[in-house]
């Protein structure tokens, strides 16, 4: 199913639709097929308008067996279309997933347009002549389904066929079979008379440019690499596999031709340690993990704060606490990112807002880390990581420059080198090994400002503690004012999200506005330091709602910082925020609280 969804997404992209996808994997590696735990699904929303989420309720559901039907039917909207392969609807299979009656015949799906047929046999029949064994033949059913969907949505078959030719270039038998299956599916749509409508989804009005499809983890990997490349540094990733961050390692491990060094460490502590080492050596050290791994890295991140070295720590959040639900999404690590270190150890925190935005967020993280010599925490989450959307490919030449500004000369009148002399931004001087005359030592003990020598002087510690905080605040230079989307300026309600909630917020706002209400929305990318205009923005609205996939972590920050009585709106179900639910709640708030 993942492949069918993937290719159908490309068809939507080629047709100029905007889209958003969400693959959904079982928690087990290969949970037995036909069980609820074993269902793998792929959700796609595409449209002629801007799309911000993979959608909550679906219009069309393709279910290949009873388990898939059971697991997903609740998401199909009333009146929606169900395409279902009934080949496996035996009593035994139905019972296995808890159906006592056959849902295709017991009337329970009356509110739905059901198209049930033996898709498996049709696919097997279509490839009958091609010499595949039964297992291989059965596998082509996914391509049959794709052909059928292509027909239903009036997509040209050519894109899929081209792809198959590339994919199976050296396996002609499989190529022929898959092509035959696609064509058979397409023909089935055309001839079976099961379907009374075909759909045409016109292109969405998106900015002119070259687009590609990208998932959050891939965009993030590219953003890191772009940052290193623009700074002229090697990218070094130290990582230990963990869901849903492992793909960052997988993507970067393939980029050896781009000079990326990846180090699969023995644990998360070694991973971040090696990244700190790489940065000390004058490269861009990065590490990527999820919540439990973040906890383990905390001590070393604190060291990087003290050393004042560039470092990017990517936290692809998953549902917690503890092992939690590793394959599910959440925004539970904001507090950990901001506060999860001993002592006062401030550092910049950036959150990506959409799969494609992971690129820009990672690039910004690199720019801040390198130019301010500071560790930066980059927050993404399981939803962004695996979800994909169109991405206007950036021109690297147009991205802001990044200057590591390595020290090459002594910086003291007496010809010495002091590693903790600072520039106007309070960023310290950065000399890397191999530079003659600038030999120096850094460490985790408190140091005298300027010289960097160990210091237990109370006044120095006081000054250094405040200086590290002041440096963090200088990062505001790279933080743009928060733009608010408030079309006619009449809204009394502001919905402020951060990270991945901004997609659903945008989608919900569309619904609220379509329902005739005014609502302002904004999405925070910079969580530390916060944008300079944020206080003013918050005070501008009668009511501020802050949706989060946690119990109100940003809310706490905003209330503390601005003393504004913002309202927390929280979901912790391991799922992306539901746009429909949010829209409904916003409308009732507008109707009731803001009358």
């Amino acid at each position, binding site marked *: 199913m993942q492949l069918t969804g993937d290719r159908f997404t*490309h068809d939507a*992209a*080629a047709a100029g639709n905007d889209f958003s996808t969400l693959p959904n994997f079982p928690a087990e590696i290969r949970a037995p097929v036909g069980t609820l735990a074993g269902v793998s699904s792929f959700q796609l929303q595409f449209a002629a308008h801007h799309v911000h989420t993979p959608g909550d309720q679906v219009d069309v559901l393709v279910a290949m067996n009873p388990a898939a039907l059971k697991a997903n039917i609740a998401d199909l909207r009333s009146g929606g279309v169900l395409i279902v392969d009934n080949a496996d609807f035996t009593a035994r299979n139905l019972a296995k997933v808890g159906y006592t009656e056959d849902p295709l015949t017991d009337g329970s799906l009356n509110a739905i347009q059901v198209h049930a047929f033996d898709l498996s046999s049709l696919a097997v029949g279509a490839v009958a002549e091609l010499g595949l064994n039964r297992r291989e033949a059965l596998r082509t059913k996914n391509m049959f389904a794709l052909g059928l969907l292509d027909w239903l949505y009036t997509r040209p078959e050519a894109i899929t066929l081209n792809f198959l030719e590339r994919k199976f270039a050296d396996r002609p038998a499989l190529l022929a079979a898959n092509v035959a299956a696609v064509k058979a599916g397409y023909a089935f749509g055309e001839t079976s008379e099961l379907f009374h409508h075909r759909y045409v989804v016109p292109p969405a009005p*998106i*900015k002119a*440019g*070259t*687009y*590609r499809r990208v998932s959050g983890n891939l965009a993030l990997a590219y953003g890191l*690499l*772009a940052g290193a*490349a*623009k700074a*002229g540094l*090697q990218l070094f990733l130290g990582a230990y596999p963990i869901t849903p961050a492992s793909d960052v390692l997988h993507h970067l491990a393939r980029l*050896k*031709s*781009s*000079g*990326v*060094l990846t*180090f699969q*460490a*023995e*644990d998360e*502590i*070694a*991973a971040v*340690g*090696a*990244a*700190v*080492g*790489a*940065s*000390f*050596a004058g*490269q861009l*050290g990065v590490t990527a993990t999820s919540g439990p791994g973040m906890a383990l890295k905390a001590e*070393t991140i604190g*060291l990087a704060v003290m050393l004042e070295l560039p470092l990017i720590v990517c936290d692809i959040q998953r549902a917690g606490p503890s092992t939690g639900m590793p394959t599910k999404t959440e925004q539970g690590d904001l507090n950990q990112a901001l506060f999860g270190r001993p002592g006062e150890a401030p550092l910049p925190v950036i959150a990506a807002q959409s799969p494609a935005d992971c690129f820009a967020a990672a690039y910004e993280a690199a720019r801040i880390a390198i130019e301010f010599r500071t560790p930066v925490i980059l927050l993404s989450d399981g939803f962004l990581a695996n979800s994909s959307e169109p991405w206007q*490919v*950036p*021109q*690297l*030449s147009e991205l802001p420059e990044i200057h590591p500004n390595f020290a090459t000369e002594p910086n003291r009148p007496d010809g010495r080198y002091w590693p903790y002399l600072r520039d106007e931004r309070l960023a310290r001087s950065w000399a890397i*090994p*191999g530079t*003659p*005359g*600038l*030999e*120096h*030592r*850094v*460490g*985790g*003990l408190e140091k005298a400002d300027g010289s960097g*020598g*160990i210091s237990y002087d109370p006044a120095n510690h006081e000054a250094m503690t405040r200086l590290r905080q002041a440096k963090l605040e200088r990062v505001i230079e790279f933080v743009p004012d928060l733009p608010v989307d408030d079309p006619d300026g009449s809204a009394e309600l502001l919905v402020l999200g951060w990270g991945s909630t901004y997609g659903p917020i945008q989608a919900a706002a569309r619904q609220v506005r379509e329902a005739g209400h005014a609502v302002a929305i904004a999405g925070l990318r910079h969580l530390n330091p916060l944008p300079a205009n944020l206080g003013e923005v918050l005070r501008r609205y009668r009511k501020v709602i802050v949706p989060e996939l946690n119990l109100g972590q940003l809310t706490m920050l905003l209330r503390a910082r601005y003393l504004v009585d913002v309202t927390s709106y929280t979901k912790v179900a391991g799922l992306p925020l539901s746009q429909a639910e949010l829209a409904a709640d916003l409308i009732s708030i507008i109707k009731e609280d803001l009358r």
Partner: protein
Amino acid sequence: MSELVSPPSGLSGVPLAIGPLTRKDFVSDAEVRWCPGCGDYAVLAAFQGLLPELGVRRENTVIVSGIGCSSRFPYYLDTYGMHSIHGRAPAIATGIAMTRPDLSVWVVTGDGDALSIGGNHLIHALRRNVNITIMLFNNRIYGLTKGQYSPTSERGKVTKSSPVGSVDAPFNPISLALGAEATFVARTVDSHRAHLNEVLTAAVNHRGASLVEIYQNCPIFNDDAFAGLKAADGGLINLRHGEPVTFGPDNSMGVIRRPDGTLATAPVAEVGIGQVIVHDAHAADPQLAFALSRLTDSGGLTLAPVGIFRDVEAPSYDDLARAQLTAVPKPKARLADLQRLITGEETWTA
């Protein structure tokens, strides 16, 4: 193999010093702050003497340490250095060694730092064979935290945290390293400067991970832990590749193989020098080195082999990792390549 090519040294790739360097070049201006009589002083002095002899540039030397008395080491050397956090120096050094083949990378650590909290990083650095040289100061005690027993303390040790005696069996760091596939493993003693020099020189010249255990006296919390060994008639067994393993006054004792295959010690006069085994530090297989490591008594320490247990050639992790990279092109071309990469193959235009 038809030709004999000299193996790459641990220092190959590190630029040579232009002029001659002296000890003074490597002395930093930080005030040395160990207790009077601490064995760390002797090692520091030896090391400051050794560095200029290696012939590589001072600015291309990096010393990374963890936390502990011994881990103050980098501050006293005028090279690049990092006094990091407890136990993590091997991991940090791995990142440095991987990204910078032009650096000579040293790790300074203690028995607590390397074998207690940092045990995992140590064994993994050894297994991978990262090109770093690890100096493990073993004083069989936690010095900096004022004297708790460590993973190398003998069982029964009375300390603040074990007021009626510790009940842990100690590690034998040499055995542990060999079990972790280490390719260079040696042991030396703080006060034996010439030996220290020799062993450290071999270690840094070994390409890959080198572990050097240094018996170091802590006069404050574990005084004379090695006195039994250091005594003139003590039990230091000096291992030298290709030579029979003898020790004691006038080399009157030797290491022999018992009928069951294990090693033991015996008076040479009794068994005959022919029975004394000849050390082979370069044996591909670590069986002999391991067997030798077991001659160390883990209790009060009256017998311990020193010298190089094992020194074998094996590809170093960072060399292999770098070899997988294609050469990074000049900045312009690099950005153009990257632009192609991120654009990808399946694009569309709006």
